């Protein structure tokens, strides 16, 4: 698979980080809104604790924790509906389509291939971010909860208590979101203090109270908003860099290429409907609740609910061109795309009575995209936020986890041993009541059951990066699950067992067998493709690390299915990259899978990606005379380019279709190709300003042609059809004009070897009274006539007239036809005002008819002093049919 920005270990650590819920009171939100950010958003850039943490495992060994990533979010009453998830994913991929030049490349044969695929990484991050919580695992349950109150509240302590109370109630009542089973949820209280407007003394007092009541490591006072913007003159805008902009979608149109909205808008479903369903209940109903929160802010936000918060128009952040946002790795961008993309906030999470109402209130970024973020926060403040995160993690979360791991460990161990053996024996003797094992493997374990406790222990250990312990737990509980035929739990345990095996520093075994089995159980027995996909993503990441590209490719291909085009396309592309990295590289498989991926991309309406993959694959098929394949690629390329309004590329692609190897295509196909080509060609010409010309130059009736269009015709590209057989061109000079009055000005078209710019056809008959040939027909008819006899006669006639005067040059008047069999070394002489006929042989290699019309001959005059005239347009006589 393609080279990713993160190492696998980092990837796993970032994906499986502890999830933290944030419950903030409205006044706290207000404080943050002064920066154009919500509290969660404010924390986003600081989610990685900078200090290393330490944790002791049950055996009292010290582990160092590095690179932990916290996932901070607001708890939502309902999981995202899957169509919104899909929309987010597809938008993420769509947005991130150009790897740029900084991608790494490897050479396959003589072709360099860019092997970074940032869109895949973006997709992956968003996928994991929105991974659904489930009962069979605890990794994505909220481990901690931060209660945030602002110091400007009238009674913060009481507010803390209220929030806590309410939260515990909702936790009990609602099934979603999921938290760690009580008492394992860690509560942390944060007091936000606004330095500019807040009361310092009050803050101090509160700090004392909080540290007394809640203890160290469970509460903090965070002082932010040190900068007073009202006192800022217009002289300085907040000059600090804006690290938040990379976490909010800056959908400025400058980044969108042409044709994006145009071509894709027909496929984008109207987001307003998606977001507004289920319907939003007006804030009036909130009045029922005494403690209702933010009904005020909900209204204006809904008003700003644009149909498409993810799409084009938005006010671009004037300072978003700071170095952070442009080159930010797509991971963080994507991480926050997801956050932003739905940004659903609970309207009523705090109202226990309104739990059933499914409100979605989209936090539109129109508010925050405008202007600057964090203008009240100085660098010092940012440091403080960082310190808060560190404190929270190292002094709050980690000791809490440590404690609980220890407790759980004891519990689990005590349950093991004698008790368990007895239990098991008893069950096997009496055939006991196994937990209902359905075919789907959904087994209902109570949270207190031994198996789930073990799983919980494993998960906690994994979150605290204690992989040995985690592996042990997973291994034993997988055995239990297997015995109980609880397939979903079994698959989950397998998956995590494999992951922890991989993350261990000393690996004894290969985790891949576990992975394969888990993927297979997820997919076949439990039919939960979502988890199967997740397991595949993890598995392939690890296989890539161990350079097992072939099984990785196989795993990817196995997961491509009919249900999701985008996912299949991405997986196929990754499989292609795996093939490329094998040794020796399977370049042809790579190209083939790129084609398949391109096809799926176009089905998933990701035109740019389709274009890109087809373009990449084309290099492998060129010049190898796999004509059908190449034609298919060119055709698709042309199509995609055309839809994206890249007419130049479309034209080039279609042009390649008209290649000489036509014999293989069916007539119907040829017809289609030709039609498409002509259509695209016309559009192309229009676009490059050759105006209303059709494929061949337009001929006017008047004596003065439209010179401008004529001049432009010398820029007309040379088409490969029909094929001109230049050797068989014939020129007939100075025929007596028959019926037509339009005489050519003096010249020859050329020196007799018919290399004319465009297709031309010869006019036909004219009557003649001269010696020599007046028409090609007569030439053909009398081809046996030898000119020698006539020439001799002519010579006699001239010479016999008088003495041979050396000054008089003998110019034969006879020869007026020139073709490949005649002597063409002297330039023919033509009389001014007389007609010159040119016959061109053309050949149609297609199996279909070609209709040529409006033909004209372009010619150029070279005067003796070396000047060349412009290319002029001859007047049309008529066309002799083929």
């Amino acid at each position, binding site marked *: 698979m393609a080279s990713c920005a993160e190492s696998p270990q980092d990837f796993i650590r970032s994906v499986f980080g502890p999830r933290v819920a944030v419950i903030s009171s409205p006044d706290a939100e207000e404080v943050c809104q002064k920066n154009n950010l919500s509290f969660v958003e404010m924390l986003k850039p600081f989610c990685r604790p900078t200090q290393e943490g330490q944790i002791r495992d049950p055996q009292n060994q010290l582990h160092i924790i590095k690179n932990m990533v916290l996932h901070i979010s607001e708890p939502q009453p309902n999981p995202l509906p899957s169509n919104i998830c899909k929309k987010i994913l597809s938008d993420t991929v769509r947005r991130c389509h150009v790897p740029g030049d900084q991608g790494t490349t490897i050479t396959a044969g003589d072709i360099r291939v860019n092997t970074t695929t940032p869109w895949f990484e973006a997709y992956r991050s968003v996928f994991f971010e929105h991974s659904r919580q489930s009962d069979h695992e605890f990794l994505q349950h909220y481990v901690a909860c931060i209660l945030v109150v602002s110091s400007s509240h009238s009674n913060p302590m009481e507010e803390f208590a209220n929030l806590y109370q309410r939260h515990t109630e909702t936790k009990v009542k609602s099934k979603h979101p999921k938290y760690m089973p009580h008492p394992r949820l860690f509560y942390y209280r944060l007091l936000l203090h606004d330095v500019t407007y807040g009361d310092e003394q009050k803050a101090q007092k509160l700090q004392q109270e909080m540290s007394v009541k809640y203890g160290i490591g469970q509460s903090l006072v965070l002082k932010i908003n040190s900068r007073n913007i009202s006192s800022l003159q217009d002289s300085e805008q907040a000059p600090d860099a804006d690290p938040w902009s990379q976490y909010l979608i800056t959908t400025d149109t400058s980044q969108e290429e042409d044709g994006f909205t145009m071509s894709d808008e027909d496929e984008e479903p109207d987001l307003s409907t998606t977001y507004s369903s289920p319907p939003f209940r007006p804030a009036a109903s909130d009045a029922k609740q005494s403690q209702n929160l933010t009904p005020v802010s909900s209204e204006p936000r809904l008003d700003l609910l644009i149909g498409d918060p993810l799409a084009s128009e938005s006010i671009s952040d004037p300072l978003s061109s700071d170095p952070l946002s442009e080159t930010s790795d797509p991971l963080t961008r994507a991480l926050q795309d997801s956050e932003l993309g739905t940004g659903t906030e609970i309207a009523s999470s705090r109202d226990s009575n309104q739990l059933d109402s499914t409100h979605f209130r989209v936090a539109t970024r129109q508010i925050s995209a405008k202007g600057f973020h964090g203008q009240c926060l100085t660098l010092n403040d940012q440091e403080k936020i960082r310190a808060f995160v560190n404190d929270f993690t190292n002094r709050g979360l980690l000791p809490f986890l440590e404690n609980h791991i220890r407790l759980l460990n004891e519990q689990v161990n005590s349950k093991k041993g004698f008790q368990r053996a007895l239990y098991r024996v008893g069950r096997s003797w009496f055939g006991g009541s196994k937990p209902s094992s359905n075919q789907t493997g959904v087994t209902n374990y109570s949270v207190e059951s031994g198996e789930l406790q073990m799983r919980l222990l494993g998960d906690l250990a994994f979150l605290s990066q204690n992989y040995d312990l985690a592996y042990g737990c997973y291994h034993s509980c997988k055995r239990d699950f297997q015995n109980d035929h609880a397939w979903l739990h079994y698959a989950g345990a397998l998956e995590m067992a494999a992951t922890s095996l991989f993350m261990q520093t000393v690996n004894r075994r290969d985790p891949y067998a576990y992975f394969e089995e888990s993927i297979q159980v997820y997919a076949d027995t439990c039919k939960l493709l979502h988890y199967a996909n997740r397991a595949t993503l993890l598995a392939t990441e690890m296989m890539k690390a161990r350079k097992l590209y072939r099984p990785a490719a196989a795993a990817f291909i196995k997961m491509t299915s009919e249900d999701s085009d985008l996912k299949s396309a991405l997986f196929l592309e990754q499989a292609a990259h795996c*093939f490329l990295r094998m040794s*020796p590289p*399977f*370049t*042809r*498989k790579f*190209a*083939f*899978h790129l*084609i398949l991926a391109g096809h799926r991309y176009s089905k998933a309406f990701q035109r740019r990606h389709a274009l890109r993959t087809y373009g990449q694959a084309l290099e492998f*098929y060129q010049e*190898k*005379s*796999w004509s*059908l*394949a190449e*034609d*298919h690629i060119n055709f698709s390329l042309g199509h995609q380019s055309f839809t994206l309004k890249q007419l130049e590329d479309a034209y080039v692609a279609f042009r390649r279709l008209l290649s000489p190897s036509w014999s293989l295509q*069916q007539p*119907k*196909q040829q017809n289609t190709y030709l039609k498409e080509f002509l259509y695209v060609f016309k559009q192309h010409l229009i676009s490059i300003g050759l105006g209303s010309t059709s494929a061949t130059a337009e001929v006017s009736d008047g004596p003065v042609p439209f010179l401008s269009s004529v001049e432009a015709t010398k820029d007309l590209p040379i088409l490969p059809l029909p094929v001109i057989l230049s050797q068989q061109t014939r020129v007939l000079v100075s025929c007596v004009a028959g019926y037509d009055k339009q005489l050519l000005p003096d010249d020859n078209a050329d020196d007799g070897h018919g290399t004319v710019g465009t297709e031309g056809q010869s006019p036909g008959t004219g009557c003649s009274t001269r010696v020599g040939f007046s028409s090609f027909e007569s030439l053909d008819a009398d081809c046996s006539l030898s000119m020698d006899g006539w020439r001799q006669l002519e010579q006699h006639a001239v010479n016999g007239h008088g003495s041979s005067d050396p000054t008089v040059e003998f110019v034969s008047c006879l020869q007026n036809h020139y073709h490949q069999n005649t002597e063409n070394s002297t330039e023919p002489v033509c009389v001014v005002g007389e007609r010159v006929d040119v016959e061109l042989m053309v050949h149609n290699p297609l199996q279909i008819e070609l209709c040529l019309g409006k033909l004209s001959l372009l010619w150029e005059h070279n005067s003796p002093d070396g000047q060349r005239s412009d290319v002029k347009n001859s007047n049309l006589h008529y066309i002799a049919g083929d």
Partner: protein
Amino acid sequence: MSGNYFFVIVGHNDNPVFRIEFSKSGESSTRREDHRHLNEFVAHAALDHVDETMWTTTAMNLRIVDKFNEWFVSAFVTASRMRYVILHDVKNEDGIKNFFQDVYELYIKASMNPFYRVNTQIESPMFKRKVLTLGKKHLLG
């Protein structure tokens, strides 16, 4: 039994030297037309496997080397490393083996023609006719 076969002789530069399709009469031609390029793609992609497998065995006939959806790909490598690739959707090992052998002999004779340059297209209509007969005999019979 749907016996569709797509046979291609591939030269050293991955260029197809000769290609031909066999099918039972009465196949809907439209379906095939849309997928003719797919045949080429699959055959081309299978070349990787052919190249890999040919070093693992001394036999010329490599049997089935690859699979794509419902198509199997069998291959045969000649002494001059010309690769014969055949796509088929039913397993017909014996038929294919005999077919390969006979085509091989035919190819040897064709390549001994002093006017024929190796690795270029085989244009001879006689060759094509003979291959057709062989195909009918071994593959479709």
